[in-house]
């Protein structure tokens, strides 16, 4: 696999790990937040945590679009399917997230709701075309990576004049969330001290590396944009350690093969046409974050499922036991949650972080619980 296998070289991995061991200065702590759930998954799936020096600690950020979706928004999707009898098209990722009363879209489907898994927004549009007598709702989630495809899909729906199609627009914005974490950290007692940020790979493909400059400049935070292969990850950590050691705080780009300073201009222009920034948006764990999500622009609001069905987002608190919020803010580790591995497992998740394979709890449960089992994990 070109552009994949080359970045999974076993020899290089071990060697770079040695280099990293050498670079990390004893007596110093390196605390880096990987914003992105994709990176959380890479660390766990390849067992990279094993290879890191003891004083380099990775802190999981809120960059999993499934994990940050608050219960209220899943309830809206459920309402479209159950009360309004719409065909709900969704990425499989959201199917198992528990919403109000612990009920997931998957369970709603078993109860008879017409919920269909799609791989692309265009598949949802095809469902609408094939079922002209039914309302078809696409549950549009995701960060800037997933947003341009939704935009293209809506453009096409408008062009074809498809009347029975609408979207629950739940697209969120990466820089706003990153900034929110840094802004609110001083107010949060448990907030971790961060020594650097790992910048997302595919989000940055779209938005480019420029938007991160503010973190380096204003917050004096080393940033490295990182690809999703294991060598990308190791290299990025090495680059962050070097910035720390050298007292630099720059935006570096490890993923230059796909990320440019300005990103994808076509995609950005399209997003500007189809969407508008919401004044604020509710994130799981982060609460209400200003200017952190998108709604449809006036030109496309005919496709807004929230308007069409009068869907109103209700604020539903997470399960009391669940520490997802603190975990998404980087304040806690999964095994610090009492439910972890007991009441909450991937088979019976209580919180979103246990659902998505990018969720910190799921990643730790599936790949890592045995390693720290002796200390904390009750399931070991």
């Amino acid at each position: 696999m070109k552009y994949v296998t080359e970045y999974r070289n076993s020899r290089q991995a071990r060697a770079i790990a040695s280099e990293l061991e050498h670079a990390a200065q004893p007596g110093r702590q390196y605390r880096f937040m990987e914003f992105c759930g994709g990176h959380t998954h890479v660390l766990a799936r390849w067992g990279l945590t094993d290879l890191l020096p003891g004083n380099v600690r990775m802190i999981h950020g809120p960059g999993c679009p499934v994990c940050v979706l608050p219960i209220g928004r899943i309830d809206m999707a459920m309402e479209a399917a159950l009360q309004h009898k719409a065909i709900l098209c969704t990425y499989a990722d959201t199917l198992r997230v528990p919403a109000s009363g612990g009920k997931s879209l998957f369970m709603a489907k078993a109860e008879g709701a017409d919920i269909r898994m799609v791989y692309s927004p265009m598949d949802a549009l095809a469902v609408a075309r094939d079922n002209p007598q039914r309302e078809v709702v696409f549950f549009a989630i995701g960060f800037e990576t997933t947003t341009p495809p939704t935009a293209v899909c809506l453009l096409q729906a408008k062009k074809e004049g498809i009347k029975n199609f609408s979207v629950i627009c739940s697209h969120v914005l990466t820089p706003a969330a990153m900034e929110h974490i840094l802004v609110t950290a001083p107010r949060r007692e448990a907030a971790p001290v961060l020594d650097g940020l790992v910048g997302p790979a595919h989000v940055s493909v779209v938005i480019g590396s420029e938007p991160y400059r503010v973190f380096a400049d204003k917050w004096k935070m080393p940033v490295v944009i990182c690809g999703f292969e294991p060598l990308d990850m190791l290299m990025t950590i090495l680059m962050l350690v070097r910035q720390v050691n050298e007292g630099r705080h720059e935006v570096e780009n490890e993923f230059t093969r796909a990320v440019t300073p300005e990103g994808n201009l076509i995609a950005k222009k399209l997003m500007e046409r189809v969407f508008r920034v919401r004044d604020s948006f509710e994130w799981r764990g982060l609460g209400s974050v200003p200017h952190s999500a998108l709604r449809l622009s006036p030109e496309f609001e005919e496709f807004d499922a929230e308007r069409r069905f009068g869907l109103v987002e209700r604020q539903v608190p997470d399960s009391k036991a669940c520490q997802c919020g603190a975990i998404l803010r980087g304040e806690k580790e999964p095994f610090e949650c009492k439910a972890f591995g007991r009441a909450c497992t991937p088979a019976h998740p209580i919180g979103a972080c246990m659902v998505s394979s990018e969720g910190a709890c799921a990643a730790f449960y599936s790949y890592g619980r045995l390693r720290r089992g002796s200390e904390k994990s009750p399931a070991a």
Partner: protein
Amino acid sequence: MAEEKRRYFATPIDVKKGIIDLTHGAGGRATAQLISQVFARAFSNEILEEGHDGAFLPEIHGTPVVSCDAHVIRPLFFPGGDIGSLAVAGTVNDVAMCGAKPLYIAACFVIEEGFPIADLDRIVQSMGRTAREAGVKIVTGDTKVVEKGHGDGLYITTTGIGEVLPGIRVSGRLARPGDRVIISGSMGDHGMAIMSEREGLSFGSGIQSDSAPLNALVEEICRAAPHVHVLRDPTRGGLATTLNEIASQSSVGIMLDEASIPVHEDVAQACEFLGLDPLYVANEGKLIAIVPEEEAESCLKAMRAAPHGEESAIVGTVTAEDPGYVQMTTLMGGVRMVDWLNADQLPRIC
């Protein structure tokens, strides 16, 4: 019986353009006609139910073994097989994994009203072919037709009967520290062949299901490694889930080496694309043999020389540490858990 009944079948079944309707499952003439013109033709053997309620079998020599599986796959036809070949091979394999020689198959069909008789015929022929390859006889069966909207074309349940090979004793409880974990070839071919064909993903590939009867391979293993401890086919849930079951049943740990696990390039690529892990993807023509260290090499050699075993590889070791857990040294040199499958893997975007 075919002879005697023919005179009632004034109009033969239209195998080319006909469709199944509810009368074909009602137990009357239409059922008899379907049996004689579609099933009996493909399965013919001297034991096959001659209109009696059951089949009389020759004497069974070793310990008798029985295993059953319902097959509900979609699509019914896929690269490398169909529901028919799968239903026979799957049950042949489950019997074989008991260290046994599969002998007989009973097959039940639940057909959805409207199903094309041509497709049924093709599937039934494919069952006959697979049975002949495996050297088993389809000795009895049953056909029911359900109303449109109460099925998915065709479900096939097969039950296999066999006899344990002389001197062999395998069980999921018998893995011992030091044993070697051998698999008979690449992981994930079947599941990805299905996934790549499934509607809604608009995704095409040349990936072939590995679906195949493994009884001949099992006989070779039992010859080369008479003290084989465990035989198991990593079907639903894939290698990861099956090894977890064994680790749990035998109260042992299992340590895999990622680099040694064969995965075909196109399967690996399709998995990347859909966000799936080949270790959790179903196989239908692969087995896991857990054998004492001293028989591992000869077993591997025998497997590589046997049908459907060419790509066999030693992929791990049974350990006394971490009983109940499967772990893996990744390609990157890190060690991580390989957990149970929690739910069907679904294509993901994040």
